[in-house]
């Protein structure tokens, strides 16, 4: 009896000690964020989330430092140089949103060789020694067509708005949409433009193409471009098709106004900028000696007709729908991958 009690007590102490143990090992650790671009609302939200989550973590002594660095010109060479500087400055881990999946591999390899943990997210790197927190962008494309197939069983004409030409994410989402359209042959992609994930570029491109297009039943997008498409279509005096949105506040506000006016229904999906905070906790866990698989998948954030009002309430005007991750969320994602 006494022995069992002792056993239970020590087990309880051990269990209670686990979280503090994972913190204690990282209290001297310094983590850097290497970011390649800051010039849009998504990236601004990503940096704000990083600040919101890491500042208390530093205050509580979970890590010694969590500094964010952004390059000015969105160039892979510039970011490679930045990573080399971060190695020299002695950071224990570098969290990277990469300008290119392959061009940073040399610098990432150097970091690994110097004993630095590298965790890439959103823009991931292919170098095997780094960790990757990726979104299944192809799934994002397939889900859009699947939603349209459910709304429009008879199919119809689709307009596809793509991202920035030559970027990995654009190719992936496009591949998913293409696969979705192949699986649902009642749909035809009758036009395609590059909107560069920017509202004004999408508006400009759609306005130029629209006069030549037949009736459009659905618009598949990549995020940041839905409101621009809506404005171009409205300006041309056409009926508004089902436009898939990308979680930006302006897109969701327009959707709400349309819903209130005429019962408009659609869906919105994108990767949450707060994924930077997930990468932070994953890096912390790796430094704490936890076993973490090299490839992790983070679900994308979906806003539906039912969650629209809630999402708008928590999204700042002009911002992006967001979730910030806690240590427990990160542990759950790691556990799911194992």
């Amino acid at each position, binding site marked *: 009896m006494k022995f069992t009690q002792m056993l239970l007590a020590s087990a309880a102490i051990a269990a209670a000690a686990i979280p503090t143990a994972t913190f204690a090992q990282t209290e001297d650790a310094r983590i850097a964020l290497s970011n390649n671009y800051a010039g*849009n609302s998504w990236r601004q939200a990503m940096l704000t989330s990083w600040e919101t989550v890491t500042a208390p973590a530093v205050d509580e002594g979970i890590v010694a430092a969590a500094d964010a660095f952004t390059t000015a010109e969105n160039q892979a060479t510039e970011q490679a140089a930045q990573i080399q500087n971060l190695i020299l400055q002695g950071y224990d881990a570098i969290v990277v949103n990469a300008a290119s999946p392959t061009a940073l591999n040399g610098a990432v390899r150097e970091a690994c060789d110097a004993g630095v943990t590298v965790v890439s997210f959103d823009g991931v790197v292919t170098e095997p020694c780094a960790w990757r927190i990726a979104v299944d962008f192809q799934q994002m494309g397939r889900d859009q067509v699947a939603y349209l197939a459910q709304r429009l069983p008879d199919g119809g004409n689709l307009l596809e708005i793509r991202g920035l030409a*030559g970027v990995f994410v654009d190719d992936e989402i496009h591949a998913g949409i293409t696969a979705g359209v192949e699986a649902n042959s009642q749909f035809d992609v009758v036009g395609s433009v590059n909107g560069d994930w920017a509202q*004004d570029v999408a508006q400009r491109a759609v*306005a*130029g193409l629209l*006069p*030549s297009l037949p009736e459009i039943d659905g618009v598949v997008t990549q995020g940041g471009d839905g409101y621009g498409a809506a404005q171009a279509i409205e300006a041309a005096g056409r009926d508004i098709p089902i436009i898939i949105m990308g979680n930006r506040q*302006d897109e969701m506000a327009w959707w709400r106004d349309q819903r209130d006016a005429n019962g408009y229904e659609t869906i919105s999906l994108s990767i949450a900028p707060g994924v930077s905070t997930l990468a932070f906790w994953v890096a912390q866990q790796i430094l704490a000696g936890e076993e973490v698989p090299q490839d992790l998948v983070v679900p994308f954030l979906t806003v539906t007709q039912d969650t629209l009002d809630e999402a708008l309430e928590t999204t700042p005007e002009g911002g992006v729908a967001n979730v910030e991750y806690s240590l427990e969320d990160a542990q759950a994602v790691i556990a799911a991958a194992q």
Partner: protein
Amino acid sequence: MTALSRMPWIWSFLAAGIVWVITLMFTGGASIVGLTQATLTFAAFSVIVGTGQMFVITLGPGNIDLSIPATMTLAGTVALKLMGGDSGLIVPGFLVAIAIGLGVGVANYALIKLLRIPPIIATLAMSFIIQSAAIWSNRGLRIRPPEILGDFAIGSVLGVPNVAILALVVTVLAYVALEKSLYGRWILAIGQNIRAARMAGIPVDGVRCGTYVLCAVLASLGGYFLASFSGGAALNMGAEYLLMSIAVVVIGGTSVAGGDSNVPGIWGASLFMFLVVSMLNTYGFDAGFRMIMTGLIIIGVIVTAGGRTVRF
């Protein structure tokens, strides 16, 4: 041929016309109203900022303003933030945008003159400062324009978009300033030979400073209306207009070497630049092919229009 060589802008209009017809052929002409209105609307923004760039380029070799996109972004974000959707603040918002242009122009020329930095570096450095100021001022939040202003920016009179009318006014004023005023004579003289101009008693520094200010003010004007047109300012809203502002100047028949500018050509080139992308989108080419074609067509137009340089 001599008549043509005095009108180098004719080539850009010709090119725009050809591309317009080819695009219309896709729908058998059904898209004529929609395409023309869209083209006039979007060309208007290129015209406004391109005109400013043209004055700077006219100042002679090495003169260029790379801070146009950042100036547009800062003017758009600050003005829309100040107005906050309140129609009563449209005029103060406008004045603030113009004041930003004035400030940027003076700062640009101060870097060039006082610190003797080449314009290409000075305006690039300035653009980083301005862009950071835009990020700092509201972290990329998109605020809607006042309703009256938004309606004006997307509206039209007798089928002609308001922004196109605005751009036309800018063009006419620029034409008068360049062809009929002393200021126009001065910048042409400076662009052709700055030393000769100085010896002739032209206030070279004052004219150059005024030209950089004019360019920045037109950029902020463009940013103010572009932000109102597209339902709010975005941090990357000016990015398109860096190369665009230079391309419309060059395609429009203005000499890159300075001292020889061409106001009507800016319109032809702006219409052309929008129509080329629309045409290639309409015929459904993929992005890589579209970029190659855009490049080849631009080279083609410049080579054709460049026949006039033979006289050197």
